[in-house]
């Protein structure tokens, strides 16, 4: 399979998974954002919110890395700058979700 076809398929599959997760997260985020510290910790430490939030973060960053690289492809003229931007984006899309998931799985 051609690389571009794979990229397109991954984008579509991740967007399909992301749609219900975005709706789930948004409703929960609106319900907890102004709660006290312990109530928010309960949200992040209990299931199924812990696993759903982890999947949401992974898929959101995966999808964003794929789609933002398309924006770089369309609007960045310099190949070197585009490569650096793509590498930085991919690094960011790995480190941020990894740190987030490690931190919430650090909770008992």
């Amino acid at each position, binding site marked *: 399979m051609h690389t571009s076809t794979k990229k397109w398929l991954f984008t579509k599959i991740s967007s399909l998974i*992301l749609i219900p997760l975005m709706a789930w997260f948004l409703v*929960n*985020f609106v319900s907890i954002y*102004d709660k006290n510290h312990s109530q928010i*910790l309960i949200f992040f430490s209990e299931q199924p919110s812990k696993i759903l939030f982890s999947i949401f973060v992974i898929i*959101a960053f995966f999808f964003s890395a794929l789609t933002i690289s398309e924006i770089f492809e369309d609007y960045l*003229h310099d190949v070197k700058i585009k490569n650096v931007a793509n590498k930085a984006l991919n690094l960011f899309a790995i480190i941020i979700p990894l740190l*987030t998931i490690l*931190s*919430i799985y650090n909770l008992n």
Partner: protein
Amino acid sequence: MENNNPLSPHLQIYKWQISSLLSITHRIVGVINFLAIILICVWSILIVFFQNNYSTINVFLNSSFGKFFIISLCWTFSFHILNELRHLVWDAGYGFDLKVAKITGIIVFVGSFILTILFYILGRNLF
């Protein structure tokens, strides 16, 4: 190696219509959502590891600007959800007719505001 890929045309040469408006908004909203998800991740890390800073974040989120931020986030997520669904329908081979594309575009735009209100009401348990 020289890159001969065609670049997207500059925005100022477009004649604005619902399809181009939604297309550029989709990209801008996508970038905003990416930044918002980074902020949400930072928020969750701060909550877990830096309990002392929580009150500062709480004051911000409970301020008028904080509430505006939350409602704006509801809209950007809602818009992205609906327009992504529209794109998935296109990928399945439906909705390419110009009239249909215009109608679905208007549905996405108006629907994003309705969905924003719905998400907020559901989240705040206002039903």
